[in-house]
């Protein structure tokens, strides 16, 4: 058998934790060849990043322990090499980029210095490294390389930071690039550019690219082959197209089925009197205008999605509606009163009606309060809702409604999984019997299968209680499945609004079109066709 560029054989890694040993991966085997893109697909906790960490010698022992297996790089086992030899390979032969480029770049050194360092520690003279850094910056599309090299990471945008990481990783033309969720923290249009860049650089250097991701769309866009992981084991591997079209393992089939954006879009709703009518909403922070002249209405029982990229003003809008942040101008009529001019007493009453569910339940739920405390606090603050004697029963009822076991109400948030925590946050919001729930990226941090369940729960609550949602999201497929109407925002302004069908089937604005075009379809065949079309469009130009 011919040697692969990189081959992982029967790798098992165990982490020793206070709660006992955790088998992060068990008997994992896969291989990567030159010029190939291999994706490792899995949800959180599937162990998809562990083999990459093992290859880069990033597993700390203790608590980690590689209990069995071989990591063959050009036929030699990395695990049998000394520390020194492995450091020579890291960065030079095998390089890695990570999910969140801001925290993975050292904040106190210039980006030029950090890119140079990769070369200098592997023996390139400082002066040559400096010259090559400028060439690299130009290659990954950083404007003004000369000046940019002297800037610090925080002075770049998210997409540029990932470009900087790529420049740093590719400085020594490694044989293998490992990319761990390289586009997860980025906006869709930026994601498309980064994937494009990686593809271009790979074609140029012929390196092997190992892509770790949870996103079927990313797999469809770039991967040749895919390894699907679940619970520390490989459940399936094969070509990306084959795995998508004909999944062999029930887990893969479930994962593909859970991918949003394929269902029937809801029919357009008949015009209804607005429950909430916002006009001319503005928010300025000093000189900076975060939100300008926002006009929209929300009807009873309607789901209004607000989509846009980071910095478009979607979260500012939500915070202004709840008066968590004071708007600079405009009005918001709710039940005949202007939310922005309520007296403190009326504002207190209004807060019962409009509730919020945040993106990260780990941070939005107080870790020192039990689930019962979190839910019943609503009734402590608004005692008119429920007499004390009924609190226990109602809390149990709410937990059952969101699909949790009522007997778990004395547990704390950290004892639940991410999806369960978001259910707790929803139960907490429901305790106040609100009319409107604002979900600020409420399902963005969840795995697709969990995401689908939470969306199902929200839809069910909408049917049962006639709730209205303002659903803030950057993920278009989820919006397509769940919303009735969509607002598209860019740079603090609403650029387009309409029904889901109108926005997704017949977008009017260029920005909306670009946003939709950049969104990745989980089907490799669809993505291949789109790429074909893109390349065809580029050639005449």
């Amino acid at each position, binding site marked *: 058998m011919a040697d692969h560029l990189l081959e992982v054989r029967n790798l098992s890694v165990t982490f020793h934790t206070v709660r006992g040993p955790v088998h992060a991966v068990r008997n994992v085997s896969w291989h990567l060849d030159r010029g190939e893109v291999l994706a490792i697909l899995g949800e959180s906790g599937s162990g998809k990043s562990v083999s990459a960490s093992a290859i880069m010698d*990033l597993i700390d022992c203790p608590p980690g322990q590689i209990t069995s297996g071989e990591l063959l790089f050009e036929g030699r086992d990395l695990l049998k090499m000394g520390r020194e030899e492995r*450091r020579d390979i*890291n960065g030079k032969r095998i390089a890695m980029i990570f999910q969140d480029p801001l925290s993975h770049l050292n*904040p*106190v050194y210039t980006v030029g210095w950090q890119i140079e360092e*990769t070369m200098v520690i592997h023996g390139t003279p400082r002066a040559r490294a400096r010259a090559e850094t400028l060439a690299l910056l130009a290659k990954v599309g950083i404007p003004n390389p000369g000046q940019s090299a002297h800037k610090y990471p925080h002075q770049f945008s998210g997409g540029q930071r990932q470009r900087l990481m790529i420049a740093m990783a590719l400085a020594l033309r490694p044989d293998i690039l490992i990319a761990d969720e390289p586009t997860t923290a980025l906006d869709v249009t930026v994601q498309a550019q980064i994937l494009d860049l990686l593809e271009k650089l790979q074609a140029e250097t012929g390196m092997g690219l190992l892509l770790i991701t949870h996103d079927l769309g990313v797999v469809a866009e770039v991967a040749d082959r895919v390894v699907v992981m679940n619970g520390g084991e490989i459940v399936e591997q094969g070509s990306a197209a084959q795995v998508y079209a004909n999944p062999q393992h029930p887990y893969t089939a479930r994962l593909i089925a859970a991918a949003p954006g394929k269902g029937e879009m809801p029919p357009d709703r008949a015009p209804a009197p607005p429950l909430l009518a916002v006009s001319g909403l503005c928010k300025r922070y000093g000189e900076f205008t975060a939100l300008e002249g926002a006009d929209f209405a929300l009807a009873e029982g309607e789901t209004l999605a607000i989509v846009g990229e980071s910095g478009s003003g979607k979260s500012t809008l939500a915070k202004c509606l709840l008066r968590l942040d004071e708007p600079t101008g405009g009005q918001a009529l709710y039940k005949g009163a202007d939310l922005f001019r309520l007296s403190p007493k009326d504002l207190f009453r209004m807060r019962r009606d409009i509730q919020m569910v945040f993106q990260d339940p780990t941070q939005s739920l107080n870790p020192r309060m039990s689930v019962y405390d979190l839910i019943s606090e609503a009734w402590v603050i608004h005692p008119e809702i429920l007499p004390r004697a009924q609190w226990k029963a109602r809390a149990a009822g709410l937990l059952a409604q969101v699909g949790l076991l009522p007997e778990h109400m004395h547990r704390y948030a950290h004892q639940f999984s991410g999806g369960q925590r978001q259910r707790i946050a929803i139960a907490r919001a429901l305790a106040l019997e609100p009319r409107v729930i604002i979900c600020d990226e409420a399902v963005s941090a969840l795995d697709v299968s969990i995401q689908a369940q939470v969306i199902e729960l929200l839809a069910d609550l909408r049917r049962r209680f006639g709730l209205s949602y303002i659903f803030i999201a950057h993920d278009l497929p989820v919006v397509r499945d769940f919303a009735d109407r969509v607002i598209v925002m860019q740079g603090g302004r609403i650029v387009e609004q309409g029904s889901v069908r109108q926005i997704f089937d017949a977008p009017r604005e260029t920005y909306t079109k670009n946003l939709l075009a950049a969104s990745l379809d989980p089907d490799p065949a669809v993505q291949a066709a789109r790429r074909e079309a893109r390349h065809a469009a580029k050639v005449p130009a």
Partner: protein
Amino acid sequence: MRKFLTRRAVASAVSLLVLIVMVFFLSRLTGDPTQLYLPVDASLEARENFRNLHGLNDPLIVQFGRYVGDLLTLDFGDSIRKSRPALDVVIEAFKWTLTLALITMVLVSFAAIVFGALAAFNVGGVFDRIATFFSLIGASAPDFWIAIVAIVLFSVNLGWLPTSGTGTLWHWILPIAVLFIRPFGLILQVVRGSMITALSSPYVKTARAKGVRPRPVIFVHALRNGMLPVITVIGDQAAGMLNGAVVVESIFGFPGVGKLMIDSILQRDFAVVLAAIMVTAFAIFLMNILIDIAYAVLDPRIRY
């Protein structure tokens, strides 16, 4: 930066002014200055002469104006004890204290940063145990006790070092060693904690993935990030020492500001006390600005 420094200077000038007002009125609240400045058996005539001479019969506001005017010309009056301008006496003592504080703080900072960083790199290892040991001693043993034990052991019993006073380099060793222990334990713990955070940060992972060796990972990548909370504590400790290491200076007969202040208070040399307060206040104000500058130098995200 210049704007920030100006703003800082103005703010500090206001605090200094408040301090001046407080010192003036508090010293007047302690009673008739002639009771303080003149011997108990001084005659009424002598007291009246003293009042006229120092303008103590003028309205309080006039006295205050004169007092501030003198301050602006850096005239604190003469030391009664030494019959020399109080400021000269204080500055002479301050030089000693400054030297002592500077040497001690440089040694403490260097040692604490190196030991703390190494302790953080290998939690539970040798350096970590040294760190825990010194922090415990620093936190639990009072410095006057350590000072006395050190004199008994090294000066009296072993006869290696002088018991007190100044003159040779040997005289510096015990005061520095005793002053060293408490801040060393404290700063060590802060360095250790902040380095544990820095070493587990994503950018350190990036450095390791680049193939950076352990020593530069600790001392280049993590240390500069881990230094910010440390700077604050170092500044706080240094301020304490500038204020006069009263106990240590007194025990070792070290002619610094701390000892000078105690002696002057005991001997009612108020001109010297005032001058000493103003000089140390000014020094601490300068040091705070240095700390702010150090912050901005270490962390490019901080800009004033």
